[in-house]
């Protein structure tokens, strides 16, 4: 029996007003897992009213009490860890290890929110003028919302929600309709920890509910993670409605490999970077720039490893790479592979021909490698969001940096080298928000802001770290005198 999901509003599960439901399928085998409501503007408004009503009392709740709820949430996540991991595998198509890694990172975000009592602290100066004291206090702002993507269905919502409510705000979550089941479990746990009604709310849906969130006058801030194309629309629309916004967009991440790099380690790192989550990550390595004479040996080692990756259902312990999120996405990636071939790049490993282990059907695609990719080509410029790695040549350090900085994206870039001087210059000169040095996926941990530049980020304050506390609060300056 498949599950018909409900929204969670004002402390209870509610059947939404909408009659339209979006089917949720397992991309590895097309099994129907459930259906999510395509909520309406009215459904969103119910959630906003509940969150708005809950804000006054919630912000008066002592901060240590607010954080204590999140301690309980963390414990529940640990108890249900394997169950949540399995759900992520089924709805997002990733492998068990990838799902476990995601859940661990999500829990780290909850743990970061435990430090809000310290991070929210303001400051005061006595006698700023005669008998006048001045204080800067941090205050929560009201109702926030997040519109989150399919690829990390449990983790990305937790980048925002725990810190937002620890700061005293109330929250509305709108997950991807492709992967809503993880939020079902999260909100079961949020219900179990006994938060006051209305503090956290869940609204499933697509375009209409997203628009309703962006336009609603009682929502003060929006967080979004997804493609740059959609992100730009969300940023423009939400800010025009007076909201503070943070948009983490798409990427085209470059990895520069130098002749003095530990090549085996670099290959292993880059393999995980390019093909982890079947390349469907904003931090996935997409283009390798092989500098100097490292090219041939690097390509040979990488091709050998990639061709032996076990691709299959993520619930199988042997699977090292899972499926693409949908047949539609797979078709899109196949089109880009075809375009890459027509551009004249050499497809030395064709993922379309990769054997898929013990599976019939499903949106699977093996790892692909293009070599002799030219500057300015589609493969060097466009985000593919699939298991396709391009390799370019560069004669020297300066050319490699030039190539990388030509990208309109600025999410991540990595260098593989044993030369500290190159590493320093790389992080200094490359125009990307997250830099990896001998690291294939430069993923910041929860206590650091998630960097991003150019078309990879729109806004002023990033997700995670102390940026997130500043996003979810504002200073109030108090100047007082007692005659």
């Amino acid at each position: 029996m498949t599950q018909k999901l409900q929204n969670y509003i004002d402390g209870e599960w509610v059947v939404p007003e909408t009659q339209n439901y979006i089917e949720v399928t397992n991309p590895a085998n097309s099994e129907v897992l459930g259906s999510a409501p395509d909520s309406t503007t009215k459904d969103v408004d119910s959630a906003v009213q509940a969150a708005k009503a809950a804000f006054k009392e919630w912000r008066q709740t002592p901060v240590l009490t607010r954080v204590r709820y999140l301690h309980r949430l963390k414990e529940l996540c640990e108890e249900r860890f394997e169950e949540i991991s399995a759900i992520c595998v089924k709805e997002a198509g990733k492998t068990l290890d990838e799902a476990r890694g995601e859940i661990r990172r999500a829990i780290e975000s909850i743990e970061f929110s435990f430090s809000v009592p310290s991070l929210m602290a303001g400051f005061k100066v006595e006698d700023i003028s005669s008998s006048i004291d001045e204080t800067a206090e941090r205050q929560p702002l009201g109702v926030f919302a997040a519109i989150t993507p399919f690829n990390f269905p449990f983790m990305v919502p937790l980048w925002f929600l725990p810190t937002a409510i620890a700061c005293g705000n109330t929250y509305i979550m709108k997950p991807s309709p492709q992967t809503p089941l993880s939020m079902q479990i999260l909100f079961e746990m949020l219900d179990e920890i006994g938060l006051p009604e209305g503090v956290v709310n869940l609204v499933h849906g697509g375009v209409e509910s997203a628009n309703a969130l962006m336009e609603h006058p009682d929502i003060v801030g929006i967080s979004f993670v997804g493609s740059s194309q959609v992100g730009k629309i969300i940023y423009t629309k939400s800010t025009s409605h007076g909201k503070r916004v943070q948009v983490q967009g798409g990427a085209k991440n470059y990895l520069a490999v130098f002749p003095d790099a530990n090549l085996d380690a670099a290959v292993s790192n880059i393999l995980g970077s390019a093909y982890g989550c079947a390349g469907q990550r904003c931090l996935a390595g997409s283009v390798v720039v092989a500098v100097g004479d490292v090219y041939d040996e690097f390509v040979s080692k990488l091709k050998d490893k990639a061709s032996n990756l076990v691709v299959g259902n993520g619930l199988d312990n042997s699977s090292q790479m899972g499926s693409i999120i949908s047949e539609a996405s797979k078709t899109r990636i196949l089109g880009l592979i075809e375009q890459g071939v027509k551009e004249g790049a050499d497809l030395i490993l064709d993922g379309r021909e990769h054997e898929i282990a013990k599976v019939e059907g499903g949106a699977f695609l093996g790892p692909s490698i293009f070599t002799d990719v030219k500057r300015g080509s589609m493969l060097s410029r466009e985000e593919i969001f699939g298991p396709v790695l391009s390799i370019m040549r560069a004669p020297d350090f300066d050319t490699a940096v030039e190539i990388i900085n030509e990208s309109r994206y600025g999410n991540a870039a990595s260098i593989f080298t044993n030369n500290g001087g190159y590493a320093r210059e790389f992080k200094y000169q490359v125009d990307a928000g997250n830099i990896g040095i001998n690291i294939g996926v430069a993923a910041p941990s929860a206590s650091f802001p998630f960097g991003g530049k150019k078309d990879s980020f729109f806004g002023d304050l990033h997700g995670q770290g102390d940026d997130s506390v500043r996003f979810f609060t504002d200073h109030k300056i108090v100047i007082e005198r007692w005659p």
Partner: protein
Amino acid sequence: MLVTDYSLNQFGAVLTFAIDLEELVSEYYNSIQSISDKTLTESEVTNRINAASKRKRNLERSRRENVTEITLEPIEGLDAQNYTISGLSYDKEGMVSLHKIASGFYEDAMEKLNVLETKRLFSRHHKEHSRLQKTVEA
């Protein structure tokens, strides 16, 4: 019998294999309790069951807590067939074989893991099984 239809080619698979192995050790000593083999006293057998349960819990915690980006890199050179436990007799010889195989698995696997906390855990388990083996042999 410890049977796998999956390869030990990544972090999660190796941890899952280890968890299943400790489950098997518990089951083995549970079976010994109902047989009148005198190699070990009743309390020694109970201790071994409890120790296996504890190792299993620690492995499950490590699988939850220590999985990171780095652990997505493939592991090579570990063959589950080399650590298959089947048809062990419920006597001194069987116990020695059980702990020898388990000890060997942990020793080989810890070389393949690049997560420090999990390496430490595997090293401890390797030493524990070696000690348990020697206690039976003495």
